[in-house]
């Protein structure tokens, strides 16, 4: 059938949607709809209407069926109440049947219906899985990819493969069996032992073991990102129900010991027991506490303060590491590698090719070296002019330019240091060099259109990468350390703070070059056929983002075979990272998401043709992905930010979010969440977002926590803290005391025209925002940071002590929060400790807080940017019922949060943002938080 007009399509669209069109018409309609948004929308509507009609017509029948099933269920329950013996016998019978079933099922399973669960394990089939259950404790895998999750209660579970047997008591791991290749076992959590006639080896979370039938199993590429979870253990100071008696709302203010004069302020303090005064807490959180105490105001140590101060501490730890350790290590490593590569003897075969590859590798290293040390010597045989040109272009922040020697273009504008990297020259150099080694690839794939370089150049660049990968383990640095160790430490620390690498590096190249039990492939690499094989081998090790649709497995694992490199795939010495939140937000916009229906939504951008796209994501998108996030979901809906429908080319907002939600589920558990510092922080925030509403009962919660304003405020806190995480900048210099600041301090005092608290309480009154799970999650994360960095031997004694102290403070916070929840009175000493807590935390960081602004996303066209920011703190007022029964108003600072969608040209800088905050009226808060 020829192509159809819109009218023809619309005439047939209902029948098409109902599946009543013939094949030819259907094909023609499909073709038309793919390219016509109008008809696609009509089709979507028709499908909806037909679906509804169908549901509606079948409702009576469905209800009847449901009633029958409910009857059956009730009958069964009723029957089961009586005879225990009967029931036990039945269980035994079921067991017998089950065992029988397994025997019967001892045949190869159909990959189409892959999963099976037995008492000791869940077995899930991935690509091409063929396996059989030997019995309830053992399976045999013939081929393909199989996931096994072993539960601890039922003893060891065995997985037999052609090359050996994997045994585990409590673990989650993936087994891959491919004909003609070693068997791979990748451990996601727990411990797995792999053994055969030749040997046995144990692997932990994040490790991969490989083995062939007649070779001892060996540990292979380890994903450092997965390692960290091993050092995480959940912190729990107490458990128990909330036991705080409620008070009556609205509050009879005569019953409150101290009543702020809020005649001009928000009335929610009376009606909800909680109120927020915007930007009323001065300039600085800790300063606010001083102000409150001077006035004799009872102090609420807010969760916001704790989060913020710990955030500052961790960010400063990173900066210190960068400046004093990483920059130095990177410089030594680069020099060492450059010397080693220059020394390497080139083979006689394909001498010219190897020579070219070697000088490219040297150039790659020399540029990095020069960025770190402007005086560094240039190795012989390297084009000095080219190196100079590149270094100058990077230092000048040159826009898109063809990089000499590499044959492709790169935008060096992004190599300009920002945030805390502008602080001093060491950090600036470190930033540029890390950008170079993180972004500039030695490409793996090439070709004509759609590739960055030709196939020949890709071959040459891969040979250069192989030379570097080969040199790394053989290099000893000037200070006697091995280059591998230093590289590993750089990689690990970066992993730890920012997530796992997005592109392959020396580890992956080395793994592909030296397959277990076989000779090195390096020499053959110059041959066309070996080069192809090497590329295939390497592709297995290429890290994939968490959200790649090819596999449900987390990032960094060995992937299925048969993947092809993309135009950007290639070697990076220290690749840039996958930031989980960035990847997720990137999926929740056009073109992944279909057209919108609400032009007023924050996320909507109206294009010149009138169509609405989800141009930018928003902070709430991320919050809505966290487990049990009820409120952000609702706020997104209210704001119209969910009103995007799917079509043949894109997903609806909900469908896209569902896809992502798989990766944010609660069952992932704290260990998986805390696989790096970035994710760990999101995990801490998830406790704020799920909030007390997710408790089975609201009884015993402090009354103010049930207030709607409070719920929204906590979401606000989570977003502000996320903004700080994203900005990853700590601003060390306290702002000079300008006139504006004094004026703000005055405003702060005036708004707090409080009646002084009764004298007898003025010493004793301090309260901690009772969110123990947040403090515990935070402590779990900071303990892991301390353990991991100690293990890497990068902490100075000073930092070790600081982290120890932080741990003590968080223990105090956790315990006191539980005490409050159990409605036990806090002693005067404990209250004193609480009052000093913010100051103590600040002393640890030695840094003052400042508002930050960060660009977190841009739309597909690059015309718009999404900026997230924090501003001057707000002041929260909380009416608390003390265990004595007395009602007291507490005050404490809270983080403020802003979100802006701006044309790129108007994107705000830090300086502009600080100015805006001092203007009247200041910038607007997100509509949902007003």
């Amino acid at each position: 059938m020829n192509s159809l007009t819109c009218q023809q399509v619309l005439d047939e669209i209902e029948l098409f949607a109902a599946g009543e069109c013939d094949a030819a018409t259907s094909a023609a309609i499909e073709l038309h709809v793919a390219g016509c948004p109008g008809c696609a929308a009509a089709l979507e509507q028709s499908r909806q209407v037909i679906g509804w009609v169908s549901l509606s017509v079948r409702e009576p029948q469905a209800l009847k069926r449901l009633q029958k099933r409910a009857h059956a269920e009730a009958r069964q329950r009723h029957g089961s109440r009586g005879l225990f013996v009967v029931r036990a016998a039945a269980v035994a019978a079921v067991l017998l049947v089950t065992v029988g079933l397994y025997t019967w099922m001892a045949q190869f399973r159909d990959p189409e219906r892959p999963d099976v669960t037995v008492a000791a394990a869940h077995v899930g089939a991935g690509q091409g899985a063929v396996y059989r259950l030997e019995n309830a404790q053992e399976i045999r895998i013939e081929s393909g990819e199989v996931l096994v999750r072993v539960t601890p209660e039922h003893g060891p579970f065995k997985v037999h493969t052609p090359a050996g047997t994997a045994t585990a008591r409590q673990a989650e791991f993936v087994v891959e069996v491919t004909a003609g290749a070693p068997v791979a076992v990748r451990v996601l959590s727990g411990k797995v032992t792999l053994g055969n006639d030749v040997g046995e080896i144990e692997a932990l979370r994040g490790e991969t073991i490989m083995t062939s039938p007649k070779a001892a199993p060996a540990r292979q590429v380890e994903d450092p990102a997965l390692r960290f979870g091993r050092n995480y253990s959940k912190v729990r100071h107490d458990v128990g129900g909330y036991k705080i008696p409620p008070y009556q709302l609205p509050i009879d203010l005569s019953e409150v010991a101290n009543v702020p004069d809020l005649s001009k302020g928000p009335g929610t303090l009376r009606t909800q027991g909680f109120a927020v005064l915007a930007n009323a807490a001065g300039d600085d959180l800790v300063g606010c506490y001083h102000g409150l105490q001077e006035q004799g105001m009872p102090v609420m140590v807010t969760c916001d303060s704790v989060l913020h101060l710990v955030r500052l501490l961790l960010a400063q730890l990173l900066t210190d590491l960068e400046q004093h350790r990483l920059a130095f290590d990177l410089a030594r490593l680069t020099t060492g590698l450059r010397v080693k590569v220059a020394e390497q003897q080139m083979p006689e075969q394909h001498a010219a090719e190897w020579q070219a590859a070697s000088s490219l590798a040297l150039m790659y290293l020399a540029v990095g070296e020069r960025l770190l040390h402007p005086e560094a010597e240039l190795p012989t045989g390297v084009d000095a002019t080219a190196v100079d040109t590149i270094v100058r272009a990077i230092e000048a922040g040159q826009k898109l330019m063809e990089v000499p020697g590499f044959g492709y273009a790169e935008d060096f504008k992004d190599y300009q240091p920002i945030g805390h990297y502008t602080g001093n020259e060491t950090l600036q150099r470190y930033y540029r060099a890390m950008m170079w080694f993180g972004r500039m690839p030695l490409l793996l794939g090439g070709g004509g259109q759609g590739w960055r370089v030709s196939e020949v150049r890709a071959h040459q660049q891969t040979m250069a990468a192989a030379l570097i990968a080969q040199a790394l383990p053989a290099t000893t640095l000037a200070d006697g350390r091995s280059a591998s160790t230093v590289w590993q430490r750089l990689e690990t620390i970066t992993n730890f703070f920012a997530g796992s690498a997005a592109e392959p590096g020396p580890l992956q190249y080395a793994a592909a070059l030296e397959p277990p039990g076989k000779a090195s492939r390096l020499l053959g690499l110059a041959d066309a056929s070996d080069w192809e094989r090497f590329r295939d081998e390497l592709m297995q090790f290429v890290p994939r983002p968490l959200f790649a649709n090819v596999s449900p497995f987390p990032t960094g694992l060995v992937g299925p075979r048969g993947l092809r490199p993309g135009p950007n795939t290639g070697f990076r010495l220290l690749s840039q990272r996958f930031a989980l939140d960035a990847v997720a937000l990137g999926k929740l916009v056009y073109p992944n998401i279909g057209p919108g229906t609400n032009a007023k939504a924050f996320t909507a951008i109206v294009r010149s043709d009138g169509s609405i796209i989800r141009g930018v994501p928003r902070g709430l998108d991320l919050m809505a992905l966290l487990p049990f996030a009820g409120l952000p979901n609702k706020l997104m809906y209210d704001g119209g930010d969910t009103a995007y429908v799917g079509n043949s080319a894109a997903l609806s907002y909900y469908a896209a979010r569902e896809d992502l939600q798989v990766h944010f589920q609660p069952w992932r558990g704290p260990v998986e969440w805390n696989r790096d510092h970035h994710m760990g922080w999101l995990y801490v925030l998830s406790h704020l977002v799920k909030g007390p509403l997710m408790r089975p009962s609201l009884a015993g919660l402090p009354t103010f926590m049930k207030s709607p304003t409070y719920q929204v405020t906590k979401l606000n806190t989570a977003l502000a803290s996320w903004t700080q995480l994203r900005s990853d900048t700590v601003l060390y210099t306290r702002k000079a005391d300008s006139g504006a600041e004094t004026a703000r301090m005055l405003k702060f005092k005036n708004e707090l025209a409080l009646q002084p608290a009764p004298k007898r309480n003025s010493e004793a009154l301090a309260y901690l925002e009772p969110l123990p799970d947040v403090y515990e999650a935070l402590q779990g994360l900071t303990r892991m940071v301390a353990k991991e960095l100690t293990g890497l031997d990068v902490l100075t004694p000073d930092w070790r002590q600081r982290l120890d102290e932080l741990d003590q403070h968080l223990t105090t916070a956790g315990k006191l929060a539980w005490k409050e929840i159990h409605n036990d009175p806090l002693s005067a000493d404990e209250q004193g400790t609480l009052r000093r807590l913010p100051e103590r935390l600040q002393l640890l960081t030695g840094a003052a807080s400042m508002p930050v602004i960060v660009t977190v996303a841009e739309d597909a066209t690059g015309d718009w940017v999404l900026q997230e920011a924090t501003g001057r703190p707000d002041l929260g007022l909380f009416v608390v019922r003390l265990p004595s029964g007395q009602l007291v108003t507490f005050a404490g600072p809270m983080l403020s949060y802003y979100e802006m969608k701006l044309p790129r040209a108007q994107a705000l800088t830090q300086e502009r943002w600080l100015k805006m905050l001092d203007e009247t009226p200041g910038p607007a808060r997100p509509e949902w938080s007003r």
Partner: protein
Amino acid sequence: MIAECRAERAVSEKNCNRRSARGTYQRPEPRTPDAMKLFTPSASLTQLPDADLVALCGRADKAAFAELAARYYRPVCAFLFKKLGQADLVEDLAQETFLEAFKALLDGRGPVYFSSWLFGIAHHRCGKWFRRKKVGLFPADEPPEIAAVGLVSAQEEAEEQQKQMTALEYGLASLPSKTRQLLHLKHQEGLTCEQIAARLGQPVGTVKSTLSRTYKTLRARLGGDS
């Protein structure tokens, strides 16, 4: 805001009316007559608030469950349909949702707010299904004690759909009986146009054009309402 809704909900549940938890969803008056006949909860049950019905369900009162099902079947379907877009699948998941809820009620795991909880379960089921679709290597654990994902937002989403389904209800009610019979054959009995034509002794073209026209009318009706 959630807590506001909760407060409102608490009041509305106290008032013993037939409104659902958020106090904004009103069950459409023109219920399908045969559905009423099949599910004949006593008059007093229809007057009870959710919380009381939940308590009755805990004592294995099937009629109370029937009333809850009649109250929430359609909103839950609407909610699921929006996420899944396939009527068959929606029906299956709705059944599972209600059964899971019923089992939990029998176990005495009654929620504070039935509707939020129910939508939470539906949301979970949905998530489970999505995961299963992708080879489903990681089975979801049992839903948490209160499976409250999406809570109020789920209801909000459902309400929008609910409005449209109500409009559709009126649309269906105003169709001639022959057309209704046609829809019955198509959707309830799952016949194709050819089979329907054979059954009714009509030309296939007539059946198809009637069907197409009916859907168009309903779509126009909904378009106008939204």
